[in-house]
């Protein structure tokens, strides 16, 4: 089981730049989604008139399903500057890969809940770190796309773009760099050293109950 929590209102407001399309993922029985809080926040975001569409679907983590589900919103998405995704980390990565030329941002952090975990039938994986990094990495997860789960850039061990641990795997951080380069967002990498908080997911779930 996963639990998704909304990022802070200030964080999400800062992400909603220009014409914005919102994608919600509901209905997955493996993920708890904060439906009511998300609806309230999206209502507030819509006041300024920049939110051009709110799409609510299920199982956006399935790329084929996502493609069909978004088909009728093609024009709105094409016209948008920003796509905000309210889903678990897998959903955000699937959208970011599908809309590869768009700024796609995560609005939730994903934490583990004890119990049976849903099967994700694709190469994206969510590490359930509880402090989602996808917004500073072009929608590519450094926790699961990097063999060492590094959060401050590549280790330098890749040769010809291939990971030192697994030659069949691309270096996750080279992928992140190229994606941000393509989006004109390399400045995103100029952040202070990030340090992971390993106590976080557990602290949160304890607070919950």
């Amino acid at each position, binding site marked *: 089981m996963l639990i998704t929590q909304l990022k802070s209102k200030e964080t999400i407001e800062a992400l909603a730049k220009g014409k914005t399309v919102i994608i919600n993922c509901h209905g997955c029985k493996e993920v708890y989604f904060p439906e009511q809080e998300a609806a309230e926040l999206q209502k507030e975001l819509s006041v300024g008139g920049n939110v051009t569409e709110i799409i609510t679907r299920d199982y956006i983590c399935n790329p084929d399903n996502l493609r069909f589900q978004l088909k009728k919103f093609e024009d709105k998405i094409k016209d948008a500057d920003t796509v905000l995704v309210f889903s678990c980390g897998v959903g955000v990565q699937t959208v970011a890969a599908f809309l590869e030329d768009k700024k796609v941002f995560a609005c939730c952090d994903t934490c583990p809940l004890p119990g049976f975990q849903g099967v994700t039938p694709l190469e994206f994986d969510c590490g359930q770190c509880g402090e989602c990094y996808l917004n500073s990495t072009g929608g590519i997860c450094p926790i699961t796309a990097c063999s060492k789960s590094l959060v*401050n850039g590549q280790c330098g061990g890749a*040769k010809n773009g291939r990971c*030192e641990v697994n030659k069949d795997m691309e270096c996750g951080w080279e992928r992140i760099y190229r994606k941000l380069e393509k989006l004109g967002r390399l400045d995103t990498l100029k952040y202070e050293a990030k340090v992971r908080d390993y106590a976080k997911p557990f602290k949160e779930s304890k607070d919950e109950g």
Partner: protein
Amino acid sequence: MMLTELFQRGEFVVTAEVGPPKGYHIEHLLHEAETYLKGHVHAVNVTDNQSSVMRLGSLATCKALKDKGLNPIFQMTCRDRNRIGLQSDILSAALFGIDNLLCLTGDHTTLGDNPQAKPVFDLDSVSLLHMLKKLESGEDMAGNPLEGEPPKFAKGAVVSPCSDSVDVQLAKMEAKVRAGAEYFQTQAVYEPEKFIKFMEKAKQFGVPVQLGIVIPKNVGMVKYMNANVAGISVPDSMIAELQADKEKTKAGITGVEISARLIKECKPYCQGVHIMALGWESKIPDILAKAGL
């Protein structure tokens, strides 16, 4: 003595590297260091379980070298210790008067001789530098105060100027500078033109860079590096040079000549040289003499 003081004085800083043995007998290592490195180099790096192969510890070896009058550089990787272990070992280094550090992320455990080990990577090269700055300010990573005078180190890091993705390397170098890196040692360079181009971009960071040299021992070694070692590419012309006179190459003369030539060509563009001899420490005085250092 801190490497940063030497750079500030405008010295062309020369360092070498030794790898601790797989065992605790270091008489041979100390003898080589006293014979070929003492008086020839400013400081000696001690690798930290290099290539994820379990060996004698870097810190203990640094202490033994210091007791013999050499100036050690304590290499630290993030593979084997979490932030508690790393911070504790840094305080231990300060106790021993070891004041040069080199911060690395580290190779993955699966590349070494204990591939079943758990890879730690609680921190990485950037957050390790960030943590050093915190310790120097008198508190640990979580903000708890240290007792007494805080430690002070020359904080080093690494970069690969001839990487196949040098733009990604430069972005990471910038992150390391922002986190507190005060000097850089590079991966082995065999193509001066690539290094010079790299330095044109790297000089904006205003941090001294030492050219990395791995003495080319033979054709097999350089072909292996070309195929397997990240950030290294040995040009065909150099492979041909090693092939031309097998006896000369075997005697180490070709490797010494190539190394000295690389240093001479790159010297105007950098602030020092770091020689990784990989067992050929005895050639270092000769290389330095031929390079005019």
